[in-house]
């Protein structure tokens, strides 16, 4: 105990800043130049602008990307430090791919906040919010503090389809990695080789959302990918609405139910295991209606949530969601619904209501790609099944203005049957 106080004193040497004691009531911070606030939940500190306060080892780790504003013009870089007490953090960046550290001429100060998982340890999240970026542009960056910066990495902002209407965007899609992080690492590497713009993750990254050690594996094993490609995450039942979950991702809105445009796609994300179960048939239905209505002119419409409305595997179809959500999905002619929960791969025929449709026009395909690493479940088939297989898997969704292609892969790189191309005039 004494030695850690000495360490703290030594570390703080040269700084007048005295960090406030940990409080777990959460809070809000307005991010200058971005037009949005960062809000932390109960169990976390209020976010603060980073100060000149270094711990014993401020080396950045577990770097990963997200966004809270328009993905065309903004990006959030998130990381932790080895010592977990450093309050100092900034980003250096510049336009261009794979630049030298010396070429990163622009700087921005980060923000930070502590949060608790199980036990009394306080984990400290650092974020750097970049706004006013150019669409479809690659930037190089490094984060950290003086003398302790990360390697230089690159990210690319979402394209501006008004300026570049034929551009293609590629989404990597997977879920349910819990306790199978060696497989998650393989899949993340395989998806990374296909240069996606964005990772869509359908939940259950960890066995229990409060267990920080599993989150370390989740971020650590895919750092190469997640430090270059932003991730959007749908809350799964195993995240249990825990503070570590909300603290480690930067996503739009309340991080549970939100929608955003990316290329020619509008992607809606919903939490199907909210704290209040009644929200499934109440406020989340209202949110879905509002979001689908606001995005009804989008060329391609995708919904991602955790528990499938249609599945012939272990848990079967979630009938609550099928009853409450599918009529809205049908009404707004969503193209693709992305799920996990079942540890297998499953893709439906085009569906409207309870009916299999002869073509994909105005019908929805439901995909379960919950084979991200967790122990596999047996697959099943039913009248709606196009293809199912009990295998670890990850998928790619490629979207152009007039064409969407879906394809899934096993860990050995072979292609899983059931992929499709859908076109629109």
């Amino acid at each position, binding site marked *: 105990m004494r030695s850690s106080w000495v360490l703290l004193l030594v570390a703080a040497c040269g700084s007048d800043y005295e960090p406030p004691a940990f409080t777990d009531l959460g809070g809000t911070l307005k991010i200058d130049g971005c037009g949005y606030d960062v809000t932390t939940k109960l169990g976390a500190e209020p976010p603060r602008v980073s100060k000149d306060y270094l711990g014993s080892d401020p080396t950045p780790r577990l770097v990963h990307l997200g966004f809270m504003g328009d993905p065309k013009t903004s990006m959030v870089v998130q990381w932790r430090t080895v010592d977990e007490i450093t309050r100092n953090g900034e980003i250096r960046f510049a336009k261009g*791919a794979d630049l030298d550290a010396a070429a990163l001429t622009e700087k921005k100060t980060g923000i930070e906040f502590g949060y608790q998982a199980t036990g009394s340890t306080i984990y400290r999240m650092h974020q750097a919010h970049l706004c006013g970026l150019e669409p*479809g542009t*690659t930037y190089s960056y490094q984060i950290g503090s003086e003398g302790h910066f990360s390697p230089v990495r690159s990210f*690319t902002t979402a*394209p501006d389809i008004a300026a570049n209407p*034929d551009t*293609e965007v*590629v989404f990597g899609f997977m879920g349910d990695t819990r*306790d199978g*992080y*060696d497989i998650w690492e*393989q899949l993340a590497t395989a998806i990374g*080789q*296909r*240069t996606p713009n964005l990772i869509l993750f359908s939940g259950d990254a960890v066995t229990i959302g409060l267990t920080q*050690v599993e989150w*370390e*594996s989740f971020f650590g094993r895919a750092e190469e990918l997640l430090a270059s490609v932003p991730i959007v995450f749908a809350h799964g*039942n*195993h995240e249990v609405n825990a503070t570590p979950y909300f603290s480690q991702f930067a996503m739009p809105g309340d991080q549970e139910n939100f929608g955003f445009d990316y290329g020619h796609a509008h992607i809606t994300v919903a939490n199907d295991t909210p704290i209040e179960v009644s929200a499934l048939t109440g406020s989340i239905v209202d949110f879905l209606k509002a979001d689908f209505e606001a995005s009804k002119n989008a060329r391609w419409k995708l919904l991602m949530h955790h*528990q499938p409305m249609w599945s012939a*595997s*272990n*848990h079967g179809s979630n009938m609550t969601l099928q009853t409450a959500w599918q009529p809205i999905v049908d009404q707004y002619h969503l193209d693709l619904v992305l799920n996990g929960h079942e540890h297998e791969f499953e893709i439906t025929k085009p569906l409207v209501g309870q009916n299999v449709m002869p073509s*994909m026009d105005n019908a929805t395909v439901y995909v379960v790609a919950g084979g991200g690493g967790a*122990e596999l*479940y*047996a697959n*099943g088939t039913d009248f709606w099944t196009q293809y199912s*297989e*009990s*295998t670890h898997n990850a998928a790619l969704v490629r979207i*152009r203005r*007039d*064409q969407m*292609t879906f*394809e899934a892969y*096993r*860990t*050995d*790189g*072979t*292609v*899983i*049957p059931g*992929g*499709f*191309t*859908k*076109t629109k*005039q």
Partner: protein
Amino acid sequence: MTRWVVALVVTIWATAAHADEQAFRAAGELAAKADPRAIDAYEAVGAARPITRWTDDAWVEAARIAEQQRDYDRARRDLEQAIAISTDAQFLRRARGDLARLEQMTGGGEWTAVAGEHQRLVTAIAGGGDPTRELEQLEALVKANPGYPRGVAVRITLARAWETEDEVDRALRWLRDAVRLASVRTGSEVDRARIELVRMLVRHRQLDEARREVPLVTDPSMRASLVRSLAAGESWRVMRWTALALLVVLGGIAIALVRRRTGSWRAAGRRFARPPAEVIYFVPIAAVIGFIASTGNPLVAKGVIWIFAGAAIIAWVSGATLEAARRRGPIGVRHAIAHAGVVGVAVVAAVYLALDHARLLDLVAETWRTGPGH
């Protein structure tokens, strides 16, 4: 004059771009119908001149279809065409990544045929029905091509498939072979193969070998995770032997009681040969429920069928024991309660063994911890 030439060039280019866009969309329509002509249609857009903004996209789409059709050489050629003409940095990164991936898969082209056959066989194995023939073909492919770059991955695939077919020894042989092959190749694949091996050994309660393999896993967090699985596996194994011993002891006691109550081994044999009334009632109901279960999740079905088989045997032995007791006079309340208690213990032991045999224990434990919806 110059103005007219510029106007003419712009007009020609705009016309070509419009034509390419129409042709690109038409190729997309063919691809959406899984029409094999889609690849030719995309390649035609790619080959058309002048180069328009659709040219590089068309070559990439053609390459993707070629890869789907397992024509990896054609996919590589199409990607090279795209890379040669594109000026878009993001596009080039993606196309070069795809080309590198294909080269990793097929070497310099020498593994193209093997990679194609690998994809075909894996698809056939996963496609339902009896996969034995394709599994044997895949085994032959692996043995005939020891240098195949995806040799470790395909061995893991073989092991998983044989495990699904309940050929556990054969599955484990392939995983041991994957570890051996990976050991002479790259570092990361060794851990990958060994982790798969340990997991399968734990699933099948072959814990001594698993215990020897775990310390050889170099990744500390995976090693810790495997140690936890091993500890759980050891608890399951102790419980399995306890349950089995309990059933053997209870069965022995039942046989001894019937022998004593009937007076001879021959009479005891006759008593056991005659199905008791509870079995006559139970078996048809169990058969119907077992049939219904078999139409759903195969693991659950297997568990249900084993539970009913165990329950039928227990009901038979219990019924025979009670019949023999009744021959010596009415059964008292204490006797009935004790009998029911012992049968209850036997049922619990049999259910445990059935769940263990059907590899459902983890699922039941998870449902217990996190609720039925999870």
